[in-house]
């Protein structure tokens, strides 16, 4: 069990949670969080938003019962973390773009630590958040879109590596744009399939890929965009 350092609201329904401790993790990896004893049953997966010496941070959207319970946490409360899990983003080659839709921006803040010159595209449906934080961390461009289609701002041919994370619809558009643009960039999607074990043992997070089935939790959550069959 670890201790909550703070849990502050950064926009309507969006919170930034900091947990004390010495945590490891690569960009794009996630933790399984549990702020309750028996109910609800499953822990909830959240991407690493930030790691500093004495703490790890998450950025989350209240989507249902579990994240609602997270939102009630106060400094000093206890929470259980398991991780880091998943493969994370592979090392990028060349010029890099991060494309986040909504709460899908979460993993990129931590990723900027390793790739501090990436261009960042942040798409919000309503209120934007964390934009200044992102600006403060990259020497590249930060493009913000509110209410539109964030992908319209991304020139797939201008990058060597493109990481994307966001709602299902956005990832479908990423796949289309990859084909349509004929880009040579390596394009990645980070998936948010529902999970149970989080470590590759139960097969409930299965991802249909071109040649086989993979596990979102252990083989992912990051996949090459062209590899995944989004349904």
């Amino acid at each position, binding site marked *: 069990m670890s201790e909550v350092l703070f849990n502050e609201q950064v926009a309507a329904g969006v919170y930034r949670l900091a947990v004390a401790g010495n945590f490891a993790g690569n960009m794009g990896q996630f933790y399984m969080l549990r702020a309750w004893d*028996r109910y609800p*049953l*499953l*822990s909830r997966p959240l991407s690493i938003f930030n790691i500093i010496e004495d703490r790890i941070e998450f950025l989350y959207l209240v989507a249902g019962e579990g994240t609602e319970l997270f939102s009630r946490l106060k400094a000093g409360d206890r929470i259980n973390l398991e991780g880091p899990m998943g493969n994370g983003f592979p090392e990028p080659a060349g010029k890099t773009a991060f494309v986040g839709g909504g709460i899908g921006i979460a993993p990129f803040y931590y990723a900027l630590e390793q790739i501090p010159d990436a261009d960042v595209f942040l798409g919000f449906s309503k209120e934007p958040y964390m934009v200044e934080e992102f600006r403060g961390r990259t020497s590249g461009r930060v493009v913000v879109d509110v209410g539109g289609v964030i992908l319209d701002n991304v020139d797939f041919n201008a990058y060597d590596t493109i990481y994307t994370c966001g709602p299902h619809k956005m990832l479908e558009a990423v796949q289309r744009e990859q084909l349509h643009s004929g880009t040579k960039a390596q394009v990645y999607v980070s998936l948010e399939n529902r999970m*149970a074990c989080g470590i590759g043992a139960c097969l*409930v*997070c*299965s991802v249909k890929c071109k040649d086989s089935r993979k596990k979102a939790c252990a083989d992912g959550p990051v996949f090459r965009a062209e590899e995944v069959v989004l349904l």
Partner: protein
Amino acid sequence: MMDMSCKIAGVHFKNPVVMASGTFGFGKEYGKYYDLNRLGGISGKGLTLHPKEGNSGLRVYETPSGLLNSVGLENPGIPAFLRDECPRWEQLDTARILNLGGNSMQDYVDGALLIEEDAAARRKAGHTAVDMIELNISCPNVKAGGMAYGIQTETAREVVREIRAVTSLPLVIKLSPNAEDIVGMAVMCEQEGADGVSLINTFSAMKIDIHKRRSVFDNQYAGLSGPAIKPIALRMVHQVSKAVSIPVMGMGGISSAEDIIEFIMAGASVIQVGTYNFINLRAGIQLIEGLEVFMEQQNVTNLDEIRGIL
């Protein structure tokens, strides 16, 4: 000295904590969190003769204190298991249970024959990878055939008889709570020479997405597991234990050492832990340690003292 051990058809279980099929892979992943040799046993992911892709669409949904799954027996197939996983299983010092599924009688029998051959070959080389077969006649997520076998006693009898005839390995039959008569089913298994029964598999259940106006699962129904079903599972284990004299592996919603004690008092020889592995990655170890504490506090030196006392 505390003794938690127990023997089923000659197979030694150092303690009653066995990991349930489909929730523990083949052990590898949880092996990173603790020493698998501490466990009483492991029942591997359900295997079929041929590789299976499993079900499309969403595969998991949480319900109040329960879990619906619709994995649909995704597995690499028996040959791949024997080739890729068994070398590691050979090294394990815990009861290794192969969970055998199938879509047709032919599948079941051919699968069992492959396992038999493999066991013989390994035996010659002085090795063992599989200690026991757990015959799954009850997966509710496989539409073609699989379900039917687990429902009616006389349909199931055929499969049990055929598999019993072709395997020399200890054979436990995994029963479904969807069976018309789970007690009759267990009695049949005993009659047909099974070495034990394990119960329960998941309940056939449903969740509707009222906005999309369809089942959340492509396969319509899914399997319910977890603490929600424990009271029913315990009743079934109690009933079955009273009705047969072969050993019973009890499971369904176990998530504490106290739960395990209940199942043992109801008559189970060993128990299995499924869904709780997801909630607690170190479930195996912590449950065993919890049992030790209970035995010490209650002055129980051998679990036989409390087994089936109800």
